[in-house]
């Protein structure tokens, strides 16, 4: 029998460095002004931890944090909290994605404490896609919170040490709070204002949806800078490699919130090796968003192309020779 007080089981909740809200390594990278890289893990349809670790390995080579999706696209997979628990145990710094679609305020506030206790230090608060696009369209959509009331609630739990009911939390969850933004879909004019509202609600970092339309994103960022928002939040631009023109078209018409301009699809169509072209395009996108003032990092979402993430990030040169902090180094383990 394992001793329940042994240091293997009881991980100390370390005090965050001065000026930080959490002990998150992603927060440390962003606050130090380095260009951060995060990557999305494809959640397994399996109960085997090895499947999670296999999916995480290629991402850990280049990412400062790994996002565990919460039934994205309303498709059922291993839960985000389960993946986060496995990843943090293995020394990775996961981003716990919470969607408002499937759970009510009682479940979510409890899960936030559970996740923090298991070593999670980053959360990403999302509305969630409608149930209709997923594999079980007959499910009951919950949407008790929306992404902003969820942000404010977790911020209240962290900073004031209470649930929304007012009940005290003995040890508040010290979490680095994230939210999403989608600059490339309507209402274009209001997206920056909505970003400002998310910051008001508590967002400290932003991971955007896929950016394939650089001019549109530049326009968004210009307004973001005018409002001074880039100084108040870390913006990580979402990118990903396309597999083919056909896949791009399918994504555009079937996955909510994805905007891919026609000239990108034309470029994919004209390519001899579409897979290679998709990879090259992704590298170029990373370099282009890197050059935009106010962008603090990239978030790579390479659905079913996770094996390419390492090469893509290396080729883009954004790590500038530094070692990513996604996986805690062995010699520092336990420190």
């Amino acid at each position, binding site marked *: 029998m394992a001793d329940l007080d042994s240091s293997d089981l009881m991980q100390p909740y370390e005090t965050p460095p001065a000026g930080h809200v959490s002990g998150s390594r992603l927060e440390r990278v962003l606050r130090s002004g380095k260009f951060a890289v995060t990557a999305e893990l494809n959640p397994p349809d399996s109960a085997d931890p090895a499947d999670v670790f296999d999916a995480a390995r290629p991402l850990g080579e280049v990412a400062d944090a790994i996002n565990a999706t919460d039934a994205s696209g309303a498709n059922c997979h291993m839960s985000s909290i389960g993946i986060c628990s496995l990843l943090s145990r293995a020394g990775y710094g996961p981003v716990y994605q919470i969607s*408002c*679609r499937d759970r009510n*305020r009682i479940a979510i506030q409890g899960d936030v404490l559970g996740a923090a206790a298991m070593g999670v230090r980053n959360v990403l608060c*999302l*509305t*969630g*896609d*409608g149930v*209709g696009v997923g594999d079980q369209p007959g499910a009951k*959509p919950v*949407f*008790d*919170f*929306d*992404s*902003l*009331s969820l942000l*404010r*609630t977790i*911020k*209240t739990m962290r900073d*004031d040490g*209470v*649930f*929304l*009911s*007012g*009940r005290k939390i003995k040890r508040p969850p010290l979490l680095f709070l994230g939210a*999403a*933004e*989608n600059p490339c*879909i*309507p*209402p274009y*004019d*209001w997206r920056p*204002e*909505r970003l*400002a*509202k998310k910051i*008001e*609600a508590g967002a400290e970092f932003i991971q955007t*949806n896929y950016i394939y339309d650089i001019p549109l994103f530049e326009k968004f960022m210009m307004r973001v800078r005018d409002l001074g928002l880039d100084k108040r939040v870390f913006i990580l631009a979402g990118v990903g490699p396309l597999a083919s023109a056909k896949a791009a078209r399918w994504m555009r018409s079937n996955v*909510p*919130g994805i*905007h891919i301009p026609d000239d990108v699809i034309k470029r994919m169509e004209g390519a001899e090796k579409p897979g290679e072209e998709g990879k090259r395009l992704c590298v170029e996108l990373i370099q282009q968003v890197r050059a935009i003032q106010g962008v603090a990092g990239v978030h790579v979402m390479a659905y079913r192309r996770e094996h390419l993430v390492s090469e893509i990030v290396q080729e883009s040169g954004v790590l500038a020779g530094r070692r990513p902090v996604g996986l805690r180094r062995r010699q520092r383990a336990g420190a």
Partner: protein
Amino acid sequence: MYRARLFAVRHAGVFERLYQSVERVMVALDPLFERIGYGRVERPVAIVEKVVKDLLFDCKMCGQCVLSSTGMSCPMNCPKELRNGPCGGVRPGGFCEVKPDMLCVWCEAWDGATRMQNGSQINEVLPPVDRSLAGSSSWLRASREKATAKRDADAARQALASAFPEARANEPVAAPLADEPDRRQPFK
């Protein structure tokens, strides 16, 4: 009615003023409601409110009306019932992700807000809906909240109200403090 709803957004400025007048009347009537008993006036007022707001805004009677902070576009018509802006799935042309034939409630809301005097209230973060208030009169709640701000507030509700201070200031029904007339025992 969908068309009336769109009309309300196109004329959000007019409806805002109309709404302010209704609220002033309701607040002025607080002493009277207090004497008759809020519990007793609840049903008749809720019935009138439902008829009027259903016609104009496709009201869902959430009991926590925040139209003044949402460009006079009712957020409960959003299939995800979002209270703080559009989701990331809005279709080209500003159509809803879930109901592709309907214009996004929140694209409409931002549009309506530009026509309103206090349109900037749309930037303030609203708390989640208290589902236990569904079906009750928001108008009565609004007047009770304004009156209660000066009286003793329900201590059990302070956490939510202080977590969402902007909502408490602008849309007191969204972060209520007043005792509910039909809820003799304050919730824990």
